[in-house]
């Protein structure tokens, strides 16, 4: 039972981790918590359906189109909404991100209907047994893709010009601007990058958790995972996601399914109280 809990918890956690990464990537550079990110997952998955059903595209082309449009959507949000609001109080920006989420959700409900849509699995959902554990290729694909995405992200941040500019803005926006990096342009890239991460997560998980306009509610779990991980730490986001997935599943099995969320969020509150910078976060020195 414990082995199965770990396998299932890690699968669920990989999904949370992918969403959490989007939160962290964006927040580290822009200081914005994008509460509409979960709904962007949904939008990207629906874009695949639209490509397949309405444009008759093959699955791979529909996925490529969705990733491209998702990146564009992220940049558009930054340019059209967040950039004009950059001098506004934090609360205004939070409300703006909530509004983006609600607009996506209800826009999809109006245009694509309130009922679930079928969407192809990346690998088969038929399970196989290994050492007494039930493993599902479709779920393993999520874990695998999450690992590849994380690796690609780390490499991109370290070894590409694009990534170094982002890291420079992460570390010191003023210094980055002084050496000639356009901070607003990096912000736009971050929105695009976070949107692509959300798109990958959305397309991967939609067939597993059923694509409907309310699928974006998984965003709150990604947010919780990001908080657990320290909110500014990329490895923390991964660890937070996996921890949340495992704790949630174990609590559901060993305590009760009704208490599953209670235990998960109690863990979150406990973490915020005892480890305010999360499992992997660092305290930031602020000069006054």
């Amino acid at each position, binding site marked *: *039972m414990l082995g199965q809990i770990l396998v299932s918890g890690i699968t669920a956690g990989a999904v949370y981790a992918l969403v959490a990464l989007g939160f962290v990537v964006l927040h580290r550079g822009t200081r914005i918590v994008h509460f509409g990110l979960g709904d962007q997952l949904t939008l990207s998955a629906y874009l695949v359906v639209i490509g397949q059903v309405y444009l008759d595209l093959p699955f791979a082309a529909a996925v490529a189109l969705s990733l491209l449009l998702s990146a564009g959507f992220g940049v558009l949000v930054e340019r059209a909404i967040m950039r004009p609001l950059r001098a506004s109080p934090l609360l205004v920006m939070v409300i703006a991100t909530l509004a983006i989420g609600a607009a996506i959700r209800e826009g999809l409900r109006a245009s694509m209907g309130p009922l*679930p849509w079928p969407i192809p699995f990346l690998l088969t*959902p038929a399970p196989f047994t290994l050492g007494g554990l039930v493993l599902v290729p479709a779920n393993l694909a999520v874990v695998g893709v999450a690992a590849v995405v994380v690796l690609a992200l780390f490499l991109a941040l370290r070894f590409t010009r694009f990534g170094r500019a982002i890291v420079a803005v992460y570390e010191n926006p003023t210094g980055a601007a002084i050496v000639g990096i356009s901070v607003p342009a990096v912000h736009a890239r971050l929105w695009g990058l976070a949107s692509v991460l959300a798109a990958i997560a959305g397309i991967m998980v939609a067939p597993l958790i059923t694509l409907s306009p309310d699928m974006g509610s998984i965003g709150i779990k990604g947010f919780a995972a990001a908080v657990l991980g320290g909110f500014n730490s990329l490895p923390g986001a991964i660890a937070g996601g996996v921890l949340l997935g495992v704790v949630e599943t174990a609590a559901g099995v060993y305590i009760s*399914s009704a208490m599953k969320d209670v235990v998960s969020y109690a863990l979150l509150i406990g973490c915020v109280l005892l480890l305010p910078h999360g499992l992997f976060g660092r305290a930031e020195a602020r000069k006054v």
Partner: protein
Amino acid sequence: MLKRRELAAGVATIALLGSGRRASAEDMTGVMPSSIKVGVLGSLTGVQAVFGQGNLSGAQIAFDEANAAGGIHGRRIEIVSIDDESTPARSIAGFRRLVDDEKVFAVFGPSASSIAQAMEPVLRAASAVPVLGSIYSSPAASEPFKHNVFRTGPLQDRLQGIAIADFVLETLKSTKVALVSQSDEYGRRGGASLTERMKEKGHQLVAAEVFNLTDTDFTAQLLRVRAAEPELLVIYGFPAPAATITRQARQLGLTAKILGSNATANRTYPATVGPAAAGVMNVISLAALPEGDDPRMQAYVQKFSARFPDLARQNRPDLGDCLGYNGAVVFVEGLKRAGAALSREGFIRALESLKDFETGIGLPTTFGPQRREGNLAARVLEFQPDLTRKLTSFMLHSAG
């Protein structure tokens, strides 16, 4: 022998009662010489829109049909539609707006069980306003009996829980039964009724788990269910979570027969679940399947597709649209039977006269002076290996 004063008081009382009855009989709020104003209240946005949009689409098609045929006794039906945004507070405010400001004749809706439950005191207070629900299945609004509140369409959850328990025990001969139910009014009510009925018949559920409507992972619930080794798993919930539960159950090696409650009877359900859907049974309250070849259902599907081509591309009409239309046709029949001198009380009496009224879409509707539950039966469909849906010959009947 009665004293004169007592006699006078008695006569006055009878006169007052009589005038009161006449006053309500002549309540013609919302009835104009050439039109009838009807409020349509439902969840068009938010999580409950999964069925609420059908409430409006059904009303629009049925009322348009009646209007195109020259209206009802020469009166056209005018719709005032309000979206409750899936929140009880907005639903209550919307109902008050329809009744107090718009002064509608009657209200068609609400659409969601959790909304109907919250509206119960408001519906009770508005005792003169006829209210007909076509989709929600909670008994909270119509039990205890309310003179003005009618419900048609799906078998209500208290009775459905009983009917499912009887079907499982007597027809499927399964006694090791597990339940996974949604934590809201819909799942709680149906789940509790099923549990209670099983207990009455001498059987305890081997596992009873709950989930939230927006949950995405059900491993914990299903591992507990799997450990209980049930012969049959009942899922009492909405389409999206129920589809995921069905798929995850099979992935975790659960071999039990799966039976879904009426809300899971949507067209895309088997495709959403995938191959794991084969052999799964769902309760359904329709006379025929919209994707089938029944002539009356096909006529409705064509009407729907012509009226809402955009919605037809979303694999609709689906369960909510069919139930909404079924209820709206019942509503129109009530208006027709109420005659040219239309009043609220006359409409209520006309609805009470419906006996086995068939629309060809939903199951037959019967009301009576003491009966507000229009349908006391349900059917069962089974997903085939090619993931098509097939109506079985099983018929569930309420014994509650």
